[in-house]
């Protein structure tokens, strides 16, 4: 068929890229999977942070798919050291910049494994020592780089290769670690959760985090089509459901206190979230065990809604139904 609307031959994309009205911290040509939530999330974070940053990146997909030597997708100064030390490397960069009187901001990037689990100690130390670093956890709820194994962030009931669903097991037995509460206990100036399904909110939080001095933390839900087992086109839709079910609450904390949340306008049942995802498909089976686990998942979502008061009283521009309303002619994604 004749491609309609394909690139007119006269368009010089190289020139066009130079005049894009946004900062591109990750360039095209990286090797992320189709529909990768993390690739999108990282680009959005850097769009909001701008070019005057240095990134310390933990081991993980983001590191691998952006830096197959001699190529790099990054346009900001970037260093990868190890899996568990992104926070510490970032801390070192930050003190060095402070010592040199430089004002460049420091970001630490890690997946949930590098944050909830192996990188947790270094993160806690970095927060405690009050380094002026924004730590961003790209939370895709399992070890995806190694081929989908469960992490401390994997939600209850989710299938992974090390929490498989079988005859006597319904996926992960344990609960998703309440990392935000632990982060909150450090009393840092700013901590928040965000989702790739709500880019405006996400970017506002990056800017807010960079506005404070001292450590800040962003838990950024970013679906993994491979590990969650959903169609690559559904990355945003699925993550919107993560928010609208209450399974992933969108919160903002200052000094450990919840100061804001994204209200849910129309709470969705968890089975709608489970349906497009392979990792939850076993919960939809017609067995008592599956039903019980699905109900359990629903209860966990309900508990989140109750705990953080996520139900919306009246529709608003910042609730889950209004936060990404289109604006004609762009620019809503401030």
């Amino acid at each position, binding site marked *: 068929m004749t491609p309609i609307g394909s690139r007119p031959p006269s368009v010089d994309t190289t020139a066009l890229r130079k005049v894009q009205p946004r900062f591109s911290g990750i360039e095209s040509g990286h*090797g992320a*999977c*189709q529909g990768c939530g993390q690739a999108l999330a990282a680009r959005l974070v850097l769009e909001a942070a701008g070019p005057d940053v240095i990134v310390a990146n933990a081991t993980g997909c983001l590191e691998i*798919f952006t830096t197959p030597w001699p190529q790099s997708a990054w346009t900001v100064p970037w260093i990868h050291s190890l899996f568990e030390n992104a926070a510490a490397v970032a801390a070192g960069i930050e003190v060095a910049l402070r010592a040199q009187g430089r004002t460049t901001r420091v970001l630490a990037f890690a997946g949930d494994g590098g944050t909830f689990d192996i990188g947790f100690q270094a993160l806690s130390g970095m927060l405690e020592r009050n380094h002026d670093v924004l730590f961003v956890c790209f939370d895709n709820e399992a070890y995806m*780089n190694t081929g989908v194994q469960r992490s401390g962030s994997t939600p209850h009931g989710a299938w992974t290769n090390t929490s498989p669903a079988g005859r006597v097991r319904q996926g992960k037995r344990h609960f998703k670690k309440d990392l935000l509460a632990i982060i909150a206990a450090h009393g840092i100036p700013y901590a928040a959760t965000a989702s790739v399904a709500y880019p405006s909110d996400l970017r506002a939080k990056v800017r807010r985090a960079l506005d404070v001095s001292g450590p800040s933390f962003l838990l950024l839900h970013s679906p993994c089509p*491979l590990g969650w087992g959903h169609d*690559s086109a559904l990355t945003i839709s699925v993550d919107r459901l993560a928010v609208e079910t209450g399974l992933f609450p969108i919160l903002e904390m200052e000094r450990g206190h919840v100061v804001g949340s994204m209200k849910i306008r129309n709470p969705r049942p968890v089975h709608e979230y489970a349906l497009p995802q392979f990792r939850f498909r076993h919960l939809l089976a017609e067995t008592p065990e599956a039903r019980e686990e699905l109900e359990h998942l629903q209860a966990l979502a309900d508990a989140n809604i109750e705990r953080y008061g996520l139900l919306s009283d009246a529709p608003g521009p910042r609730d889950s139904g209004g936060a990404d309303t289109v604006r004609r002619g762009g620019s809503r994604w401030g």
Partner: protein
Amino acid sequence: MVEIRIHGRGGQGNVLAAYLLATAAFFEEKFSQAFPSFGAERRGAPITAFVRIDSTPILRRSQVTSPRYLILADDGLLRVPETLSGLSPEGAILVNSPHAPEDLRKHLEEEGVSVGPHVRIATIPATRLALEALGRPIPNAPLLSAFLSLTGTLSTESLGRAFAERFSGDLLAKNLALVSSGASLVAANLWKEPIHA
């Protein structure tokens, strides 16, 4: 020794395809070997897997750099520069493609991709067959059976047994149906040659 290189994309089951071929050879009491290109490729990225089949024990552990045969999981892979690398000048390529081999060759020449004059090409619309039968675009079964039929390397029954090792029930039945339909789409033994070629 027959050396085969399978080109596909992460997530399409190409490594599984290699394992299936090697397993099928095992059922015919041949010596075989299948392994992926160990890498960090993501879903969708071009990847390769290798198969060796011989009547004597296989000692080689190196990658297959000059294969006799290529099996391509989609015709777009012909545009990936590494795909044709090292293919024997008398080699053959089986492509999952809705296009006729001549059209494919012509199209590639227009794009400046040169397939050697003695390299044979065959195509089968494996994705369409798989979508019809499985509802998912996993081209393995028709592609592998067509390959075996073309080369006469192994019987499609052995391939069926290899499938039975990994699948069961309805999915197995559908795959077995695809094995027969794939084989029937090509001329049997068109590429046949002695196994010690």
